[in-house]
């Protein structure tokens, strides 16, 4: 019997692809997590929608494994940060497993009081990088709470590594490690020939172990491309999953995430292939050139999707017409929020579009800028 969980990641076709997660995958993670966090029958744990996110299996089955209480967060509540805080307060939650976009939003509206949520023991997050300023906001107000960063793509089930903050980060620039592998899993930082890179050097991050999905739903090609046989394997079934993330393994034994090896970004919890947005823009037939980049905002907002474009006819093409046309073919979270019209896009010496200066320009504009 298998539990199929749909990952919110549109594949190259633009339609969401399914990742098969087995009951055993989930059970392994939960056994580790319940032991590591010391989940007990006295716990009062948040359960977040949507249920097609694999994280919900931990909320639900992790809670019931320990005989604890599950408190479902109404799906629309996350619009109102004060109400989310009120729910944690009134329900006297002991564990809040959230995503960075919700934690950021609550920090942005400053809804957490000093010493708030006295019953709360653990804040966990997963799914994307939590900006360090946001983490500092939370940790300063809640010194009685333990904060744990969980990392892992759906393809390796819920999370594959963890890092519990020993103390509040000293500076807003600090990179929070994704930490160490959960029991039964392994994080490998490898080079192109799948050999481990020296400590401290950047490599591709692979995951091995009990969390690995059997593969994508009805997509053997894609499965073969992402789940590779591993030569250091103990048996024929041993595989590694290529995350597409870049990372380092430090002398402290901790793994740090550095970014993507491709043009994929995470925004508001969704994995987005920037190339797919560019393809949709090109298909409109109204642009001479375009480039879509992710720009990190300076405060709590995370990554914004930004588009620089050269219109065929500047008189008829505006950000509003482009947005409307894209909204008809892409889900809302993939429609760029910031636009810039240019006479030509910057190019590298070999003639490719140079995304770096575009990214820097958008980042320099800050979060308020919208054309």
């Amino acid at each position: 019997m298998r539990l199929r969980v749909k990952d919110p990641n549109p594949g190259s076709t633009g339609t969401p692809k399914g990742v098969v997660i087995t009951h055993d995958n989930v059970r392994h993670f939960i056994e580790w997590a319940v032991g590591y966090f010391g989940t007990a029958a006295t716990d009062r744990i948040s359960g977040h929608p949507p249920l097609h996110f694999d994280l919900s299996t931990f909320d639900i089955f992790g809670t019931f494994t320990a005989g604890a209480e599950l408190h479902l967060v109404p799906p629309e509540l996350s619009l109102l940060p004060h109400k989310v805080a009120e729910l944690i307060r009134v329900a006297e939650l002991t564990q809040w497993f959230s995503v960075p976009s919700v934690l950021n939003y609550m920090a942005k509206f400053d809804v957490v009081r000093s010493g708030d949520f006295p019953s709360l023991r653990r804040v966990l997050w997963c799914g994307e990088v939590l900006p360090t300023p946001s983490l500092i906001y939370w940790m300063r107000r809640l010194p009685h709470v333990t904060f744990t960063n969980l990392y892992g793509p759906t393809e390796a089930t819920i999370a594959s590594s963890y890092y519990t903050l020993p103390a509040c980060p000293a500076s807003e620039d600090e990179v929070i490690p994704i930490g160490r592998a959960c029991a039964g899993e392994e994080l490998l930082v490898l080079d192109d020939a799948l050999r481990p890179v020296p400590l401290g050097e950047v490599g591709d991050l692979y995951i091995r172990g009990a969390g690995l999905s059997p593969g994508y739903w009805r997509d053997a090609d894609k499965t073969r491309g992402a789940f590779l046989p591993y030569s250091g394997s103990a048996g024929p079934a041993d595989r590694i999953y290529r995350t597409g993330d870049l990372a380092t393994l430090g002398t402290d034994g901790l793994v740090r995430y550095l970014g993507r090896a491709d043009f994929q970004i995470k925004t508001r919890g969704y994995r987005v292939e920037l190339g797919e947005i560019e393809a949709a823009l090109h298909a409109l037939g109204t642009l001479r050139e375009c480039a879509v980049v992710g720009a990190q905002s300076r405060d709590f907002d995370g990554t914004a999707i930004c588009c620089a474009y050269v219109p065929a006819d500047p008189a008829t093409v505006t950000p509003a017409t482009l947005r409307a046309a894209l909204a008809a073919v892409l889900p809302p979270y993939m429609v760029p929020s910031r636009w810039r019209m240019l006479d030509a896009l910057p190019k590298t010496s070999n003639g490719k579009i140079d995304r770096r200066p575009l990214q820097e320009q958008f980042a320099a504009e800050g979060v308020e800028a919208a054309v």
Partner: protein
Amino acid sequence: MSVDASLETELAALFADELHVTVPSRETDLLATGRLDSVGLVELLLQLEKHFGVRVDIERLELDQLRSLAAIATFVAARLRRRAEGAAAD
């Protein structure tokens, strides 16, 4: 056209132009259909202040006040009325 109906038209234009969200009808559930997310809500509050001079305290907002164009229009109209009455009383 009643005050609320013209408000609804203005709001629909505001959703289209500023939030880049198409709203098929005045009763469309903006929350259930995912048309209004947290980023959109922040933008909406900004635009309500800009266009109508209505400052909304997010702390006192209820989800049902945001559920549809009709609901938002009723909410904005009440705020505008209250402000007008306040001004008349002065």
